[in-house]
């Protein structure tokens, strides 16, 4: 401001000196010369010359003290103007009169310009942030200390079923009508956080949001900051998972639920039968003991049928997933046959095992392979007629795979029906009349063995018994083994155990 006052004084002095002073001096000179020399022409010439000299001198002074500073200021303004970057910056070194004022104004111009640029850049950043927030596929809602909405992105507004303008300034509970499946609600968490915490974070899965006519399923993450520097006390991130949770609910299919409903009483039956065998078998005579064993074997059979129904459903829905791990086939096969001895015994059958020594380890899903053998041996028990021996053998086949064969000496199968045996619901006319069954067992056997990369086959002739065989690939030949997968889960016939030391390699 001082510089500007000084400049005003200079301008005033200059106006006076450049207008009145040369005129006054020249007029005085004219009067003096006219009196002294009494020569009018010389007096006029002399005073005019003096006037010219004075005018030139004063105008140079005027140029240096006004025009040059104004020029420098003008250049500074142009230099910082948008699109005028080719204009050079002003040079204030050559300004002697008013140098301080000019440099001060120019500096202020540049300061203002940089402040303005900062603001413009900030506006640009805000615009970019806004675009990014609005393009996010998740909802973002920010609430202030009064739990009123400060900011919402486009997806958040869509989830809430209202426009952004309608939402802003509304209370959180006017905006979000949420239903939680347990007592750990947003309301409870927020009350606790605001009462006891400076900052807190949490997450909820599968929260129901009622928004107008439809409801959505969300995963919600929340952050609470009591003393947030810009007043963002609560930030909510909403991820819509409606499709995911719906499909998860649907994926517990009718068959799965039916299987669950059948298995629950079956679990109880098997448990109580076992309890009776344990606790009262020594009080029973041989006939009642055999009844007990038949009950037990029948409950095992029923369990196998239920598993078959579930497996067919999985195969049909393309959800039959195997998890192969390295196993000793000798051990696995013995385990399975042991578990079937009761079922054979109650039907007066005897299972003979013949396993070649030194079989390579195989890559199998043990639960599924259990069902392959159970189905084949169950068939042999059912269809072997008067013959009382079933032979299960395993050896290394010529192609390098492990081959297992279940052989009975029953009536055999007519050649005409052999081709359809592995088809779903297939049952030969003769077996339909004589033996119960649903025609799913061999279909499941083929599906499971094929999924393991192996093959199934049948060899039978009427009157000469039947042989059902399947192959499994040695573990070392599996692509999975070559990929060096490190299994940490050991599968057993009834489930799995993680990191089981007995089975770890």
């Amino acid at each position, binding site marked *: 401001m001082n510089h500007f006052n000084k400049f005003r004084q200079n301008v005033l002095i200059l106006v006076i000196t450049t207008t009145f002073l040369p005129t006054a001096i020249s007029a005085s000179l004219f009067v003096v010369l006219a009196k002294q020399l009494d020569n009018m022409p010389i007096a006029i010439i002399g005073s005019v010359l003096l006037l010219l000299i004075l005018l030139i001198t004063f105008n140079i002074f005027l140029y240096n003290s006004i025009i040059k500073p104004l020029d420098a200021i003008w250049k500074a303004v142009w230099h910082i103007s948008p699109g005028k970057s080719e204009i050079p910056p002003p040079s204030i070194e050559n300004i002697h009169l008013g140098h301080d004022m000019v440099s001060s104004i120019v500096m202020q111009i540049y300061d203002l310009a940089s402040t303005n640029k900062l603001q413009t850049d900030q506006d640009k950043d805000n615009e970019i942030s806004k675009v990014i927030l609005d393009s996010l596929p998740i909802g973002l809602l920010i609430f202030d200390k009064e739990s009123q909405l400060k900011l919402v992105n486009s997806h958040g507004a869509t989830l809430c079923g209202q426009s952004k303008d309608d939402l802003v300034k509304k209370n959180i509970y006017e905006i979000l009508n949420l239903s939680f499946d*347990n007592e750990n609600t947003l309301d409870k968490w927020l009350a606790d956080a605001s009462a006891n915490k400076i900052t807190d974070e949490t997450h909820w899965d599968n929260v129901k949001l009622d928004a107008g006519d439809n409801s959505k399923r969300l995963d919600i993450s929340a952050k609470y900051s009591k003393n947030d520097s810009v007043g963002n006390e609560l930030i909510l991130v909403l991820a819509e998972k409606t499709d995911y949770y719906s499909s*998860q609910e649907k*994926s*517990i299919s009718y*068959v*799965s*639920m039916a*299987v*669950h409903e059948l*298995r*629950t009483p*079956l*679990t*109880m039956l*098997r*448990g*109580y039968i*076992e*309890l009776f065998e*344990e606790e009262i078998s020594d009080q029973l005579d041989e006939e009642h003991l055999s009844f007990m064993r038949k009950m037990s074997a029948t409950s095992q059979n029923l*369990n196998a049928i*239920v*598993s078959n129904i*579930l497996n067919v459903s*999985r195969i049909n829905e393309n*959800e039959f*997933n195997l998890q192969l791990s390295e196993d000793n086939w000798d051990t696995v096969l013995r385990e399975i046959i042991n578990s079937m001895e009761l079922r054979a015994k109650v039907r007066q059958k005897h299972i003979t095992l013949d396993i070649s020594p030194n079989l390579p380890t195989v890559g199998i899903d043990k639960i599924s392979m259990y069902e392959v053998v159970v189905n084949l041996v169950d068939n042999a028990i059912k269809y072997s007629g008067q013959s009382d021996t079933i032979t299960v053998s395993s050896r290394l086949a010529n192609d390098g795979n492990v081959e297992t064969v279940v052989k009975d000496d029953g009536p055999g199968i007519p050649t005409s029906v052999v081709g359809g045996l592995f088809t779903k619901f297939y049952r030969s006319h003769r077996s339909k009349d004589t033996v119960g069954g649903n025609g799913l067992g061999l279909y499941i056997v083929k599906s499971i063995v094929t999924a393991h990369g192996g093959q199934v086959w049948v060899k039978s002739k009427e009157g000469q018994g039947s042989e059902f065989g399947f192959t499994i690939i040695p573990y070392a030949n599996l692509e999975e083994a070559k990929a060096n997968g490190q299994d940490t*889960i050991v599968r057993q*016939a*009834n*489930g*799995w*155990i*993680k*990191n*089981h030391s*007995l089975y770890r390699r």
Partner: protein
Amino acid sequence: MSDQASPNPKKILCIEDEFFISELYERALKKSGHQVTTALNGQDGLQIAQTNTYDIVLLDLMVPGMTGMEILRILKDPSQSPGFNSKVIITTNLDQNDETRAELEAQADAYIVKATITPKELASFIDKVA
């Protein structure tokens, strides 16, 4: 019976809503020398598991109050269940979808289909897990 006694008796919590099944499990496991507590719903089971120390938690996936999966998540989250380090064996008769199966394999220590295993077999299964 001495031949049924577990070589390594355990403290076991059984979260199972079907009374007949929990009764059978409790009886068979006690007979094997284990110490057994039973919870018939999810909330009670969770609260007992969080406030006591067990070697094994048998967890049914379909229990009233809370799902077994929710209980498993809470028990395996150190911020919600500090100090919980029991082994969790999932006991279920329900077929699992891929997502649930993957989560169970990540979180649980073992898994059994109840209908495929008798209470006595469960006792020997527990000996393998623990």
